[in-house]
């Protein structure tokens, strides 16, 4: 599979996206078939590309000096690329049904598919400049999606999202510059490409720059001081909040931070320094903050958004441990959380789509009326809580094992935070489950007669996700093995 | 302070005039007084420039009686530059005066801040 393929795979979604509003489809069915077909084709190409990986890199544009926009697939890009390629067709299928109610869905699907290409671009970037290039494009392409409903809140939310992201990217930019100047090659090299001779006495400036870049990219990964945009972005239609604000965009932030820590600054350089403690403290605070805010929130999607904030910081906690085991934990939670969160967001979307209710106190007794959706929601809730036998437990186990192995007292406190947040997750997820399955004794089911399960468009992705959750939970050895190989640099 | 302040008294006067013209340009409220300040400043510069060329005991650089040795005449370049400078200040003053006329015709005042306030009020309504 020659390297040109990498660029084609990123290009196809761009072209399909642009083609959708232009081609005059007679029936909506044609458009859906066309779009789903091309997205599936692209995912197939991505997977075949990941199967037999081309070694050398592929340069698209020679930017300035020695900086080029170029792609290369290594372990990390296989994980993120594979994840995105797996989830996108399902999410598109789901959004066909969901977007029936919304207007000008052509524009929506255009930006939605272009985001697919941009995320793949981030995954396959060979060096920090290319990743930064697609990282900024991601913001620009996702703003119209957040703004899709064009109501007042949507406009304000998209504006806040834009300010936060551009601000964050500005500080990420500073990190990128230092890497370009102080590393012997801007490409990603596991173990860091910093050239120690050049650094000389300026280590503490570099550490300060690392913290700034971490917070810069952290804005997208919803790190504590900069995450108020994520709950507000709940105003967007569910396919957007589910896929982007639970999987693609925020994971891109986490992916960028992993690249920054493991592949640019290098773990030996950062481990044990004050930068690690500062960064880990922020992440631990975000874990607890996210969950405690979620408990108080009564809007379903905002509650899930806050839970995303805390789960993202799980991944960052794994990253900040700065050991190969930590990376394994981070990667496993990145993949498993993506599956769990997209499943619960889609359930929330199904509820809002079918019944139009979006507040927790309106959901009494839905369990009996929508058994399949709420059954899946319960499984995803249990998985999020980390009940053994589901994939949540596996990733928590890897994270905790890495934290314990790192002998860093702050990491021990981190495990405590993980468990406190698990308890809070139990509170805010199970209170929904109990409210729906065991409503008060005198509750008459006629008031919610109109509530019933959505059709197979929505249920198929949901059931696939549940199967994935349980499958990963019971038999996670091969995938964790794959992550360990990546962490040790085999790929 | 250097040695030849009193030797270059001409340039010193030019410097003081430049300062006065500059102050006038910034401080005066009335537009025409600003233009006068501007002209003072320009003439100060040309005095400063003319002083450059002068050599004691030598006449203007017009060849008289076939004498073409350097000792007979002063340095011609500054006077050439002054000539050009004067034309510049003439044109600039003409431009500023016509601007003042147009502003006066419309706002009947020569105070620039007053004019900008009147414009704001005009736009407000």
């Amino acid at each position, binding site marked *: 599979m020659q390297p040109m393929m990498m660029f084609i795979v990123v290009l196809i979604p761009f072209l399909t996206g642009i083609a959708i509003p232009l081609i005059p489809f007679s029936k909506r069915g044609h458009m859906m078939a066309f779009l789903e077909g091309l997205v599936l084709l692209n995912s197939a190409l991505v997977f075949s590309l990941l199967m037999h990986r081309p070694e050398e890199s592929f340069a698209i544009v020679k930017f300035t000096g020695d900086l080029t926009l170029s792609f290369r697939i290594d372990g990390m890009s296989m994980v993120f690329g594979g994840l995105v390629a797996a989830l996108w067709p399902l999410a598109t299928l789901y959004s066909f049904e969901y977007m029936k109610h919304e207007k000008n869905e052509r524009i929506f699907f255009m930006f939605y598919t272009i985001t697919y290409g941009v995320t793949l671009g981030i995954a396959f970037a060979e060096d920090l400049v290319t990743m930064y290039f697609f990282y900024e494009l991601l913001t620009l392409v996702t703003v119209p999606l957040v703004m899709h409903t064009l109501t007042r809140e949507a406009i304000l939310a998209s504006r806040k999202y834009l300010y936060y992201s551009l601000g964050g990217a500005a500080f990420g930019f500073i990190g990128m510059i230092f890497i370009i100047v102080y590393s012997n090659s801007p490409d990603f090299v596991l173990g860091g490409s910093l050239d120690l001779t050049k650094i000389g006495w300026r280590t503490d400036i570099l550490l300060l720059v690392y913290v700034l870049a971490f917070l810069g990219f952290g804005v997208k990964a919803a790190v504590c001081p900069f995450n108020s945009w994520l709950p507000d972005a709940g105003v967007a239609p569910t396919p957007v909040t589910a896929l982007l604000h639970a999987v693609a965009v925020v994971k891109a932030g986490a992916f960028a931070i992993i690249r920054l820590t493991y592949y640019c600054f290098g773990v030996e350089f950062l481990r044990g320094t004050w930068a690690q403690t500062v960064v880990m403290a922020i992440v631990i605070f975000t874990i607890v903050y996210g969950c405690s805010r979620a408990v108080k929130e009564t809007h379903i999607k905002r509650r899930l958004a806050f839970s995303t904030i805390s789960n993202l910081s799980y991944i960052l906690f794994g990253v900040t441990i700065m050991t190969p085991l930590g990376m394994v934990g981070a990667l496993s939670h990145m993949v498993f959380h993506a599956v769990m969160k997209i499943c619960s967001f889609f359930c929330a979307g199904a509820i809002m789509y079918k019944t139009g209710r979006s507040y927790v106190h309106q959901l009494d007794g839905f369990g009996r009326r929508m058994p399949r959706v709420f059954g899946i929601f319960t499984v995803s809730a249990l998985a999020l809580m980390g009940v053994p036998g589901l994939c949540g437990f596996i990733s928590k186990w890897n994270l905790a094992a890495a934290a314990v192995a790192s002998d860093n007292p702050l990491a021990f406190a981190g495990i405590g935070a993980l468990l406190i947040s698990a308890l809070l997750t139990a509170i805010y997820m199970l209170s929904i489950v109990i409210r729906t399955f065991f409503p008060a004794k005198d509750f008459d089911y006629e008031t919610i007669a109109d509530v019933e399960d959505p059709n197979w468009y929505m249920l198929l992705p949901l059931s696939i996700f549940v199967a994935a959750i349980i499958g990963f939970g019971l038999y996670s050895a091969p995938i964790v093995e794959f992550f360990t190989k990546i962490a040790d640099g085999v790929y | *302070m250097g040695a030849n302040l009193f030797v270059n008294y001409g340039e010193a006067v030019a410097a003081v005039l430049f*300062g006065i013209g500059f102050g006038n340009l910034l*401080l005066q409220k009335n537009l025409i007084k600003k233009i006068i300040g501007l002209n003072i400043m320009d003439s100060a510069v040309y005095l400063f420039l003319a002083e450059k060329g002068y050599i004691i005991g030598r006449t203007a650089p017009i060849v008289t009686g076939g004498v073409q*040795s350097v000792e007979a005449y002063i*340095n011609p370049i500054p006077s050439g530059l002054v000539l*050009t400078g004067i034309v510049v200040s003439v*044109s600039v003053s003409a431009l500023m005066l016509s601007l003042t006329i147009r502003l006066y015709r*419309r706002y009947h005042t020569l105070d620039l801040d007053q004019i900008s306030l009147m414009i704001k009020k005009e736009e407000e309504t």
Partner: protein
Amino acid sequence: MSRKKTEQEYRKTFAFHFFRWLNGEKDPYLGEVEMKPQEPYKETEEEVKARIREKNMISRRLYGVAKSKEMKGLERFYKAASIIFCCILIYLLLFTVSYLPPVGTADRPVNNEVPQRYIENGLQETGAVNIVSGMILDYRAFDTLGESHVLFVATVTVLILLRLDKKKKNDGEISIEEAEANDRIYEPKNDAILQMAAFVLVPIIIIFGIYVILNGHLGPGGGFSGGAIIGAGLILYLNAFGFQKTERFFTEKTYKWISFGSLSFYCIAKSYSFFTGANHLHNIIPKGTPGAILSSGLILPLNIAVGLVVACTMYAFYAMFRKGGF
């Protein structure tokens, strides 16, 4: 000892809560986990009105024509700052002047080989007796070319501002008829003394101007000064005999074509000499015998062209200021 607490008081004490929790009657979680439903925030009518009123108040205060307090403060600060700035500037200039090379001495860096060549073989190379006009019209001709265009640009801007369009009535400004009316009211008409003086002086002034232009390369003077003199003469004539008389020989069209003709001649002549100079071609224009009127190659025609431009510009400025037309 202590009086028995009433029911409400007891209910507020810590002991009551602790024991209630201890024996599990009322536990802190009951009913707390589920928040009351939160309605989204709707902006009531008067809040909107209050917001608009407050916005207007701000803009009113900001643009208040009456001298508001901080405007005065700002002015005082601006005045003080500019006075200090000027004093510093004067001190600095004096400080530098004191270090400059002494005026009048011959051995200053200014008197290097550049003026020496001008003086020694200026006459041979340019053919001009007056070395300064030789310098400004031949050695450093590019500056003077720029110079005349500065004057030209200034005239263009003055035309833009002051020229009144005959056909259309300007919006808001005064029309051509009113301008004429004003002109007639304020300017003197058929003032006998002025007319007699002009009758005598104008020819002398103009002849003297022509003399200065023609002798530009021989003695002091040149295009700029001669033109100015002729311009002054024309202005005196206009003042004395009014617009009808001057329009007989000097209308806007003549002005346009004279300035165009002389400026383009000047431009072409100079570019010819630059082009031949740069490419080391021989300049066919003869230098002529030094001292004679028709000597020093191009300098004489250039002087004439510049003289004409300057004269017309002076007259145009004056006409524009008076009537916005010719």
